[in-house]
């Protein structure tokens, strides 16, 4: 019974396609899977937007949306209808074709990433040999769509926003990739399915997730920072800024194209959260051995939503960085830390089992973190801060 609950979607798919003639079954199952992914993530997007607006509202001592439906839960529906019925304004001088293509390229690229994501036991659309590489390749394609949007609008604010966004995404893509490399080094595979399986072991009821090792923890922290910057989330939301560059690269978009950019941003967030979950938090595996009976897909989506909640929390608490701080942080702190982490991972691999490697690797990570932080603080003339509130 419990196994059936775990595999419910797989069984449902087999049952549905069994009505068709045998030479259609493969095509039908692929189409069904794709349709599910394309419907599921916009639904999650609606939930996440509502959660974000309500949660941010509470963090800022206000109610958030509470007019549409009970407690405002119909707000995403109202927003959707509004964006569908709004006039789609294209600037007269804009490059019509590129302006039209940009949101499409973005949405297609972010959805492609889910093709290789293991969302549960046996729940992956295509089990590629190099699925991690595929995900990063799709992520890299989104940068171009942002540039297309900013450039084709023929608007200085848009162009500046696009340049900021692309520079930021390129800078943080390096630590994002390098922090994932340690996982590949340990697993010996680029396949996301194999990476999850390698973490799905338990000793004393506790899981062998990569985040519970010195190099895994350091890689995880770097990955979270880089993923926030990649998805243009606060505190790295420099590409937008009402007081500086209006809405950044999508200033000149309205109506449904604007909604597509919004959707692309959130679905990209789900993608990166799903990837981080798969790499560091054991994907669909349960956090304790005795909870193994809970269906695997529940764990995956619970972890992704927890990750989104963390993003919302950070957005509600952290002030945003300045452009030069952003770049300095990427190139002078995050990147060297990921390089040190590569060394630590190699050391871990060749030191063999035992407590010694735990001690040595932890010490290296902590010392590197503290030393790099201090040097940067001194160079930036940043001492301990003192705050003076209204007295």
């Amino acid at each position, binding site marked *: 019974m419990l196994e059936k609950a775990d595999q419910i979607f797989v069984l449902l798919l087999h049952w549905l396609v069994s009505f068709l003639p045998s030479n259609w079954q493969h095509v039908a199952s692929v189409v069904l899977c794709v349709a599910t992914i394309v419907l599921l993530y916009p639904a999650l997007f609606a939930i996440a937007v509502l959660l974000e607006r309500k949660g941010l509202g509470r963090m800022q001592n206000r109610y958030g949306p509470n007019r549409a439906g009970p407690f405002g839960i119909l707000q995403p529906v109202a927003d959707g209808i509004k964006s569908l019925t709004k006039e789609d304004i294209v600037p007269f001088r804009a*490059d019509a074709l*590129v302006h039209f293509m940009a949101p499409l390229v973005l949405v297609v690229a972010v959805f492609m990433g889910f093709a290789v994501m293991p969302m549960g036991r046996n729940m992956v659309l295509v089990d590629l*040999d*190099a699925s991690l*590489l595929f995900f990063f*390749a799709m992520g890299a*394609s989104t*940068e*171009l769509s942002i540039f297309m949007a900013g450039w084709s609008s023929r608007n200085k604010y848009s162009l500046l926003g696009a340049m900021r966004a692309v520079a930021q995404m*390129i800078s943080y893509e390096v630590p994002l990739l390098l922090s994932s490399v340690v996982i590949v080094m340990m697993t010996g595979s680029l396949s996301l399915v194999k990476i999850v399986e390698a973490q799905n072991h338990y000793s004393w009821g506790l899981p062998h997730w990569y985040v519970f090792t010195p190099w895994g923890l350091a890689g995880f922290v770097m990955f979270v920072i880089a993923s926030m910057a990649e998805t243009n989330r606060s505190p790295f939301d420099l590409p937008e800024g009402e007081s500086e560059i209006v809405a950044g690269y999508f200033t000149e978009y309205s109506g449904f194209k604007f909604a597509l950019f919004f959707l692309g941003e959130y679905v990209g967030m789900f993608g990166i959260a799903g990837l981080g979950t798969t790499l560091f938090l054991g994907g669909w595996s349960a956090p304790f051995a005795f909870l193994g009976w809970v269906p695997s897909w529940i764990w995956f989506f619970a972890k992704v939503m927890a990750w989104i909640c963390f993003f919302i929390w950070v957005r509600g608490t952290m002030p945003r960085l300045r452009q030069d701080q952003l770049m300095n942080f990427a190139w002078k702190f995050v990147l060297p830390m990921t390089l040190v982490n590569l060394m630590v991972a190699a050391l871990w691999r060749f030191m063999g089992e035992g407590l010694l490697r735990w001690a040595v690797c932890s010490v290296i990570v902590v010392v590197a973190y503290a030393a790099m932080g201090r040097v940067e603080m001194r160079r930036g003339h940043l001492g301990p801060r003192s705050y003076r509130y209204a007295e």
Partner: protein
Amino acid sequence: MSFAFYVVAALTLAGGLAAVLLKNLVHCALALTVAFAGLALLFLQLDAQFVGFVQILVYIGAVAILVVFAILLTRGSETPKSSEIFSRTWLAGLVVAAAVFAVLGWAVLQAAPGLPYATVAPMVTVQEIGAALMGRYVLPLEIVALLLTAALIGAVIVAMHEKEGAR
């Protein structure tokens, strides 16, 4: 040759031709990106997953962005005043592109008889590629790594020099 091959090949050719013929430089760069994407799809059609994905990651994710940045940071980004779509020097561009293609094609055709002829497509996993890079081809890999590091340091030095001069 399947139907998909013809579609992808047409896409790649169209992208390449547009990159040579169009007037607006940013359009050319975007058309070049289409050609890169088509090339990646062709690799994937040949079951070369690793090369296909690396083609997307490196060429679309990095090289295309670099080209675009280079265009925008120079005066090429200015929108042309006239409403012509095609470049005035389209013929010269086409001739140069055709000449390069001819040389490459000639070289490939010359080398083809020397290559082992396989009737069955080899199945190469990413793991095997990794093992080969770390084992047999480790020296070329190290040389490339050294070259790239030198280029990186050079770029940093160039950037740093300008900054000090500005102060």
